[in-house]
């Protein structure tokens, strides 16, 4: 008796999921371009070395205190641009440092391409397999907490090998977050494309930065 109603509900749910997915990827593409623009501006202006720290403080403030209040309104889109613009601005001094290396531009392009390949492959896998990766949530957040505690200790110990291990661990954890976030969108766990975009953007940003760090240290030059 309830079959047509159930079918209609399923169709509505699929349509809604596709809409969230489409909006998320559209907003992610635009914010990545915006980030690249602010990074370029920051490079041209030769902003000082403390800028990444200031930008990260600003972005985290927006993510924790402003985004949750605006995510369900159009203002949330402006906040996403604020977050991604600030993080892009923070990338400038770091990219300028890499460009001073003899193979700096190659490292940046390889890291950018590598990040793109990892993101496309993992998103494609989550989208085609349609698996539910929600069970990874606990493991990923514990991994993140362990990485933060180790990074905190390494600020004072300054062990280069530990920095490399941390970068490798962050790339793996963020790869896991791409699977987790994409599966949450597909399976209806995330209905807000603004929050979904920020989650995926942060994974991409962290993979890019840490891949660049790994390549920079381990490259032959």
């Amino acid at each position: 008796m309830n079959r047509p109603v159930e079918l209609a509900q399923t169709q509505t749910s699929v349509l809604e999921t596709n809409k969230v997915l489409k909006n998320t990827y559209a907003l992610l593409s635009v914010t990545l371009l915006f980030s690249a623009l602010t990074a370029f501006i920051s490079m041209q202006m030769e902003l000082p070395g403390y800028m990444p720290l200031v930008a990260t403080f600003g972005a985290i403030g927006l993510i924790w205190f402003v985004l949750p209040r605006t995510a369900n309104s159009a203002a949330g889109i402006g906040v996403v641009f604020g977050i991604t613009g600030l993080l892009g601005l923070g990338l400038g001094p770091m990219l300028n440092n890499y460009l001073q290396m003899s193979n700096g531009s190659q490292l940046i392009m390889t890291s950018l391409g590598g990040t793109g390949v990892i993101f496309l492959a993992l998103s494609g896998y989550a989208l085609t397999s349609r698996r539910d990766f929600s069970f990874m949530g606990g493991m990923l957040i514990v991994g993140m907490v362990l990485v933060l505690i180790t990074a905190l200790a390494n600020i004072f110990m300054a062990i280069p090998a530990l920095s490399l291990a941390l970068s490798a661990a962050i790339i793996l954890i963020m790869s896991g977050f791409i699977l987790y976030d994409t599966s949450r969108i597909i399976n209806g766990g995330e209905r807000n494309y603004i929050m979904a975009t920020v989650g995926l953007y942060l994974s991409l940003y962290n993979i890019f930065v840490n891949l660049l760090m790994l390549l920079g240290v381990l490259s032959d030059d």
Partner: protein
Amino acid sequence: MDWMKIFSALLIVLMLVYLLPRAKDMIKNSPKASNNDWLAVLIPLILVIGFVFLLIKSV
């Protein structure tokens, strides 16, 4: 110690303060996974490790 290190440490401490209660919550509410589920995660992550290794070799 320069102020950059102090602010970096402060940033990480703030992140930990924010994350820890959420981590407890997520661990409690995460669904249990089967061996098959873990395999479905491990394979792509091993491929990511291999890909990063290839990138390192290429530069």
